[in-house]
């Protein structure tokens, strides 16, 4: 059949990270795309970027086109979990609960080896 206009059965718009860059040098583009598309494939619109490696000033640079992000969220786009966490860190959305849980787990893991004879924690 014709490959010009791809139609999907089901699927929805997601805002997620598309990986680019070279070997040992990742670079994410924050992208609004159909969920059925390939991760790095054709997207609807690029909404920003994230450089996961720190620069000379020790900062990880991220750009977010908040105006268009608000548009797509208004259109009913879903967010992937890393995208939600990033927006939580940015302050656009409230902090993701897994960020908090992750922080606590990390702290516990760091504390545990130093004192293995601590009381067993519940749950």
């Amino acid at each position, binding site marked *: 059949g014709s490959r010009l206009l791809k139609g999907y059965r089901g699927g929805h718009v997601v805002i997620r990270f598309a990986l680019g860059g070279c070997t040992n040098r990742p670079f994410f583009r924050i992208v609004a795309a159909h969920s059925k598309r390939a991760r790095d494939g054709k997207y609807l619109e690029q909404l920003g970027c994230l450089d996961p490696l720190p620069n000379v000033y*020790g*900062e990880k640079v*991220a750009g977010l086109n*908040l105006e*268009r992000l608000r548009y797509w969220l208004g259109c009913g786009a879903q967010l992937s979990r890393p995208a939600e966490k990033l927006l939580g860190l940015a*302050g656009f959305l409230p902090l993701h609960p897994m960020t*908090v849980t992750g922080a606590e787990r990390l*702290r516990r893991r760091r504390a545990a080896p130093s004192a293995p004879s601590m009381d067993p924690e519940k749950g």
Partner: protein
Amino acid sequence: MAALGAWGTAAGPARLCRVARVLWGWRARRGLGQDAGAASEGKTAKPSFTDEAVQTLLYKMTGLNLQKVFRPVKMELKPPKYKLMTEAQLEEATRKAIEEAKEKLAMPPVLKEREPIDDVLAEDKFLEGTESAKYVFTDLSYSVPHRERFIVVRETNGVLRKATWEERDRMIQLFFPKEGRRIIPPVLFKDENLVTVFQQDRHEDVLNRCIAQFEPDSPDYIRVHHRTYDDIEKHSKYDLLRSTRHFGGMVWYLVNRKQADDLLIDMIQRDLLDDATSLITLYHMLHPECPSAKEAKEGNIQGVDLIKVFAKTESKKEGYIQLALQAYEEAMAASRAS
């Protein structure tokens, strides 16, 4: 004057677009409020850089040396274009040249140093230790003016704060690059390197690059400009900036600090008596409580007498000014006699 046909102003429009944009931004935002405030307070308010009267005086002093304004700027080589014109066409071309030169001489804004940003949006101390580096988030919405853009930093200790001015400038240059501006400010603008450049008499180039690189209210912009003006004043190299757009700013700086005596002497020696009188008028506008201003207002003195009054009461280099005036008058007498 067939050389007039060979103006290379390719860099001009780009530069003046930028200056015009900066000026429009500053005049539209600040100028309206300030002028309205000054008008309502009356003459007792200190005149600011953007006042009509001040601007006219500074503009008159800048001079209009067409040869210097349109001197060849370093660009790609193009063979010169020659046009055959009648007298009338030549006058028309000169008139247009003068208008273009006026636009090129538009003075860059003089503003107070900006206050550092110190605003914390959220404190989430439990995030401490999760990240190894801080995140800088920039809002990339196209229609937002750069001054109002949201640029926030999530530090490693979990604090979400607004970015400092330097971080802001860096991020905006990264995502919305401007011609002539670098992300990391060039080493040229450090004090020790400025000295070297000043020894080569390249003050105008430094100031042009400074305007391209920094925002008008950033501390670096103000520091570089003040250093340049101080160096020019120390070595009396006023002619370097005459007929450029930086002359007004320099005069404003010197008159505010009451260091304009050397400039006055230089003007008299170059037979620019009108400029000298405008300089003293500006001085009186800025320091209305000084004795020479009061005398001038009472006696309603004009022209050369104004300079004499100023020399007697205010200046620290009275002798030099008197000498210069004497030399000027002798020269005038000699030229009238011959």
